[in-house]
């Protein structure tokens, strides 16, 4: 069996950044396994701009952003395999993969970095009633057809869900000659970034109907129309508010699900909130030497933060391989997300193993205006940061300092919560 120090599952933005940082830290034996025909992952179909403002201080398209990291991977001589599907990861880090040339093969990894990304929620998961004609696509599938293959999925479009991919596709379909009639969003707020609502809908006069959902799908062969209705505070359609739209295409942008079938198979413990692994300060899962980063860990809005997080995962995996990790004295501090904060990544911190500065990322469960993001060390409030508005569509963060944590030797719980101003 072949052996590598670090095997990275997925050659998208997370996998690439993890590989680069691990290599730069000094590990040479690294292998990236990518199932698609090229490195870069989903960025290759994200041909719009807006990537890289944090990482490179300039505005790049998705493929350009990916190319920066791919170049580093190539320059650093990091090994990778394309068209290679990972079939299984065992608890003791044996990775089983398959491709056309080598068939099925196994690799013993010292560490594994999970970087498989996420998939889109499908119509089925929403249980939208109606027929099942052609013409219903997840926004990402439509994005691939249009942006990579040059095919129009349809002419008259309704979009359900205001996730970023849906918003981006509203603009793209408009550019390519389709008529986007409406974007319906179940929640009373958008799931996407504010800038995308302005730049992708408002600029093109595409209406966004909040608190609306699709209640019927018509068309036996190809979609002919849908009905949307307003929903009440529990998300139930309100009778009498139905509006019919003729359309041949329905795009769904109704959420992303971290793709963790391999992680589960390996025995990685999962968070029911993020559907991603539970990780510690090193982005390490409950299985020693198995790390996770990017959208497989929790769904991000900005690839820049994926790269940053993945860089940390790569460094930590390298430290593990090089035996550099400080030995844990067992002190474990729990992060306690409450009152509007849905989860945190990481969920536990070993202060003796953490970097000098640690970014803790999280999402809120609702829209809050003029609020504070507050951090408590046990019962003592350590910090609060005023925010004019926080929303579920935009990931938030707090920074923790190692020195500070070490100065609280009895600290058990760090609570993160939203407080009213």
């Amino acid at each position, binding site marked *: 069996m072949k052996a590598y120090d670090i095997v990275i599952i997925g050659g998208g933005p997370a996998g690439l950044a993890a590989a680069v940082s691990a290599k730069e830290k000094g590990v040479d034996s690294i292998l990236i396994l990518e199932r698609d025909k090229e490195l870069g992952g989903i960025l290759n179909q994200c041909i719009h701009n807006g990537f890289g403002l944090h990482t490179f201080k300039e505005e790049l398209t998705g493929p350009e952003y990916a190319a920066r990291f791919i170049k580093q991977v190539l320059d650093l001589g990091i090994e990778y395999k394309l*068209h290679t599907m990972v079939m299984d990861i065992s608890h003791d880090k044996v990775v089983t993969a398959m491709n056309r040339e080598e068939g099925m093969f196994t690799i013993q990894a010292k560490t594994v970095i999970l970087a498989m990304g996420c998939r889109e929620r*499908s119509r089925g998961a929403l*249980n939208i009633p109606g027929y099942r004609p052609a013409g219903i696509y997840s926004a990402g*599938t439509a994005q691939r*057809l249009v942006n990579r293959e*040059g095919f129009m999925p349809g002419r008259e479009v309704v979009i359900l869900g205001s996730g970023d991919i849906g918003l981006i596709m509203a603009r793209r379909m408009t550019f*390519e000659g389709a008529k986007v009639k409406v974007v319906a969003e179940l929640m009373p707020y958008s799931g996407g970034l504010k800038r995308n609502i302005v730049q992708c809908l408002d600029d093109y006069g595409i209406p966004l109907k909040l608190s609306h959902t699709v209640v019927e799908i018509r068309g036996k062969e190809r979609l002919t129309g849908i009905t949307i209705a307003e929903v009440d505070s529990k998300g139930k359609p309100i009778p009498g508010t139905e509006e019919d739209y003729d359309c041949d295409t329905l795009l769904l942008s109704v959420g992303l699900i971290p793709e963790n079938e391999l992680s589960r198979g390996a025995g990685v413990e999962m968070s029911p909130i993020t559907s991603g692994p539970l990780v510690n300060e090193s982005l390490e899962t409950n299985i020693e030497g198995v790390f996770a980063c990017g959208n497989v860990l929790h769904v991000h809005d900005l690839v820049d933060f994926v790269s940053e997080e993945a860089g940390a995962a790569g460094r930590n995996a390298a430290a593990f391989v090089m035996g550099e990790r400080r030995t844990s004295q067992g002190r474990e501090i729990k992060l306690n997300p409450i009152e509007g904060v849905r989860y945190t990544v990481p969920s536990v911190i070993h202060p003796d193993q953490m970097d000098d500065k640690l970014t803790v990322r999280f999402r809120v469960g609702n829209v809050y205006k003029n609020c504070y993001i507050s951090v408590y060390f046990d019962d003592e409030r350590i910090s609060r940061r005023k925010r004019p508005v926080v929303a579920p569509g935009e990931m938030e963060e707090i920074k923790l300092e190692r020195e500070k944590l070490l100065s609280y030797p009895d600290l058990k719980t760090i609570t993160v919560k939203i407080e009213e101003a």
Partner: protein
Amino acid sequence: MYDVIIIGAGVSGAAAARELSRYQVKACVLEKEEDVCCGTSKANSAIAHAGYDAANGSLMAKLNVQGNKMMAQLSKDLDFEFIQNGSLVVCTEEENRPGLEALLERGIKNGVEGLRIVEREELVEMEPNISDEAVAALYAPTGGIVCPFNLNIALAENACANGVEFRFNTQVEEIERIQGGYRLKTNQGDVEAKCVVNAAGVFADEIHNMVSEKKITIIPRRGDYCLLDKTAGNHVKRTIFALPGKYGKGILVSPTVHGNLIVGPTAIDIQDKEGTNTTRAGLDEVITKCANTVKNVPLRQVITSFAGLRAHEEGHEFLIGELPDAPGFVDCAGIESPGLTSSPAIGCMVAEIIKGILDLKENPDFVGTRKGILNPETLSMEERNALIKEKPAYGNIICRCEMVTEGEILDAIHRPLGAKSLDGVKRRTRAGMGRCQAGFCSPRTMEILSRELSMDMMEITKSGGKSSFVVGTNKDQI
């Protein structure tokens, strides 16, 4: 002139065709859709019923029990998935116990083997997720689950291999009696046959009424279902039915042969024979009622929902036989549940009837076995690698949810009666049937179909007809 024309390539038509191919017969199956298994046969509970349900002495009871008994051997001969997982009819109200006993008695009279009543304690041991209300259940060890697509496809492929012709996209519009048989006017021209088998599913009344004065009516009875992810597939081991009680006929909860969990169906009589749309009320009923027999069904794991139409005839009985006022015209109508289970026996019965009419001789070249599409997951790593070395396409995963390789998709396309659409590929290989519901693999499967069948991408459909996936190229209308 054909000896026999079979109208409909659903499971009944395919079974009849396969059984007829045991004889020296010039037979043709006409199907209005682009593929086999496009109507009732593709959207049902996928259950091989034990046979305690149908009325004593009915044809339905007889064929159900026969079909159930044939299924295991047939699944080996024709290489489709069948698991005898057993079924339980759960009684949740003590006062309904007599109903359970009546069912037991009916089953015994129907010839169902191994039936017994299990009490709560044993029931909970068998099925830990059974409802807290359950008091007892009728256990039928012969109950099973089957892949409805592959059963239908296997029968059709085997018929085809033994010389039966299949014509798709061919809809019968009129039937005219002629000397020594019938002339069928279709959208693809006329065809003639000495005998006609009417296996037209929900349309069997229309076909029947073209030749007979004694009219029949088939009512499409819609059933809504939810299908859950494989992570939910072990929630129950057996097929769990509800004993009809104060909630009316219940909702079944069952694993599928592929490891998913299926929950359904409703029973709603409708007008539209193509009305396979789910409704909010229907899905809500499925979601609410499944809790009557099974607790904590993980409904957050639903990956798709669908509806199928049962071909319900007023008398709730299979109508199989030569019509007295139309010699040589054989009905195979009213095939609703347990039609899928009964199909092997229905095929035999229809073939017997035709044999009696046409005095058929045995086909010495008949081969009663068929190899299905190879599932590489059944191979050892060494065998798999040998296969990939020979055919590298088996090393290329196209559908990552169901781990379907390009090799399997190529086989599905190029075998006799091969797939021509995404749904055709899906039914044969499961590509696109998993948790992402074809989000990732559909563009890749389209590419393969386009390449292998030399079709333009614009011609690739979901399921034939106007169900195209892409309608043009970027900016082509600007």
